[in-house]
């Protein structure tokens, strides 16, 4: 274990292992994240040179550049970054908890629950003239509640002298089928343009994000990611199996519940602001595992950055490639995610 460095602070009261290789990878990814962020801010209907973008960050640049960068582009790019981070960490947690590489927020029904909440929100709060009776600002809250209710419901239904991962997955799959049915029902009952509005949102887009969104999303993400990181070291033990984990003193049931709730909250906030951007929660942890191995202390931060990069790139492609037509970022994450997924299935076959 020469690649690990033991760090002790306050006479050993705070101690942790630092994986030097993981730190290198993390630094490189951090650099890439910054680059993608700058390039993404630079490109669009009006191209700005990356250098001017950096100038704007430090208060320089022309008024026009300042306007485009700070009011139009930066909020949505930051939302993309934060959403990618949240989804990736949620995916990493769920995969570790369920001990199956194919688990993800999408096929556990969490995203589905949020989607139903949104479609329901659009359907129930519309009056006869199809205008919304309440502010659209409440939609993220509805999405969050949807994901949270489904998360708790799945957990409760899977409860039978504790929660086994296999039951959690199966019940998640059943519930997500039910959510699909509800979603279709509400889309059919509502007017058609609402259906297409809901459909864009379900596919996942960061279009129309504001600084207001960032200011809600940022603190929540920071808090939840911190909790996830604190829980991470115990997840390594849980990977060994329930029996081993219990015998070395982990309260498996309690820990599983807190992990599930953190993952649900992460999915909830990201779905609330960006809709159902798919496959990020599946892909990012896998890529991270390839890079730094499966110790969660290293895995989670690395996969968070990968998730952020994925969503930012997907959004960049979506708004530039077919400009002026804007394509939801979710389409591109699926387009990358689906083939990756099949590759993954072949991979598990070999091992």
């Amino acid at each position: 274990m020469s690649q690990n460095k033991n760090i002790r602070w306050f006479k050993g009261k705070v101690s942790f292992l630092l994986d030097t290789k993981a730190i290198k990878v993390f630094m490189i990814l951090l650099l890439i994240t910054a680059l993608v962020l700058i390039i993404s801010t630079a490109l669009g209907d009006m191209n700005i040179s990356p250098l001017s973008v950096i100038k704007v960050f430090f208060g320089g640049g022309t008024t026009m550049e300042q306007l485009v960068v700070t009011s139009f582009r930066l909020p949505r790019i930051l939302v993309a970054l934060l959403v990618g981070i949240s989804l990736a960490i949620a995916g990493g947690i769920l995969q570790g908890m369920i001990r199956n590489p194919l688990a993800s927020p999408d096929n556990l029904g969490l995203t589905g629950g949020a989607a139903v909440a949104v479609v329901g929100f659009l359907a129930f709060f519309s009056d006869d003239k199809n205008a919304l009776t309440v502010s659209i600002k409440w939609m993220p809250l509805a999405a969050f509640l949807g994901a949270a209710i489904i998360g708790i419901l799945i957990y409760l239904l899977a409860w039978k002298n504790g929660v086994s991962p296999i039951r959690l997955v199966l019940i998640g799959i059943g519930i997500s089928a039910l959510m699909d049915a509800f979603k279709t029902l509400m889309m059919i009952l509502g007017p058609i343009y609402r259906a297409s509005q809901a459909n864009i949102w379900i596919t996942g887009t960061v279009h129309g994000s504001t600084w207001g969104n960032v200011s809600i999303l940022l603190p929540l993400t920071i808090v939840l990611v911190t909790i996830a990181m604190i829980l991470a070291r115990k997840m390594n033990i849980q990977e060994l199996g329930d029996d081993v984990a219990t015998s070395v003193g982990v309260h498996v049931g309690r820990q599983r519940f807190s992990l599930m709730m953190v993952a649900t909250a992460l999915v909830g906030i990201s779905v609330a602001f960006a809709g159902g951007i798919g496959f990020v929660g599946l892909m990012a942890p896998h890529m991270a595992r390839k890079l730094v191995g499966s110790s969660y202390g290293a895995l989670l931060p690395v996969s968070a950055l990968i998730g952020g990069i994925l969503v930012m790139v997907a959004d960049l492609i979506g708004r530039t490639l077919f400009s002026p037509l804007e394509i939801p970022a979710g389409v591109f994450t699926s387009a990358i995610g689906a083939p990756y997924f099949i590759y993954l299935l072949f991979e598990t076959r070999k091992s």
Partner: protein
Amino acid sequence: MLLKNNRQKVLGLFMLILLLAFFICISIVYGYTDTSWKVAWDAFQQNNGSNEHLVIETVRLPRALIAAAVGSSLAIAGVLMQTLTKNPLASPDIFGVNAGASFAVVIGVTLFSMGNFQAIAWIAFLGAAIATIGVYAIGSFGREGLTPMTITLAGAAVTALFSSFTQGILVLNESALEQVLFWLAGSVQGRKLDILTSVLPYLVVGWIGALLFASKMNVLSMGEDVAKGLGLRTGYIKIILGIIIILLSGGAVAVAGPIGFIGIVIPHITRWVVGIDHRWIIPYAGLLGSILLLIADVLARYIIMPQEVPVGVMTAIIGTPFFIYIARRGFNGK
């Protein structure tokens, strides 16, 4: 096992046939357009072209027959899948058959601007077949081969994959969304009888095939090794069962769109009624499947009258609690 000996089982079968006939009648008589039993009778005896008679002849009758055919096909396909994969949760919808068919339909409508029902039915068939083969192949990878867990996850994954593609296409093409939304919901409403008749040969082949291979399935369900030891060519039987599954589930989804949970619920109820002998399970499952879908379809007309709930949504609402019950019970005590 509810029915103990063969005499009871034969009797039960007759009862179910009567019940099926009864629910077909109910489905023909009750609905938004107010009709009585007498009007329905007249519509077949001396059709005078009145609105009620027209509704019964061109809307209700096809609808009832389609619901019966689709229900039994889905149920039998579910039985076959569960036997083949030894997985109590196997069924067409969990295997991604519905998602595959939906994807194919959306592609057909957007890229090849298919308009008529016939074309949609065929392309749905194709998508269903591809998805079934895909999930089966993906699920059999892995070290442990075809375990319930891997195949269920493979199904969920393929579903996620296809449905995200479907979603992406629909976002880019709003008019297509309008066109296929009602198909995507899964419904037996508004289909003409010739859609059923064009798919019916495949369904009938599937039904008869399932009955003929019922005794072989009994042997297969004892486990691969025992079956081989008893002289069953398991590989060959599995391929035949696979083809029957594609015929039945593909045919059903082609006619009615994605309708879930019948393929899960019915096989379990059937086993509870008649035990584990597939020679009884197949006919019972077929009849019970028809009856369940007919009931769901009639209920779907009344819940939010004058609008209709798509029957696929109804079966999901009925079926999910059942699914969760089975999932909680676990596989063979595992």
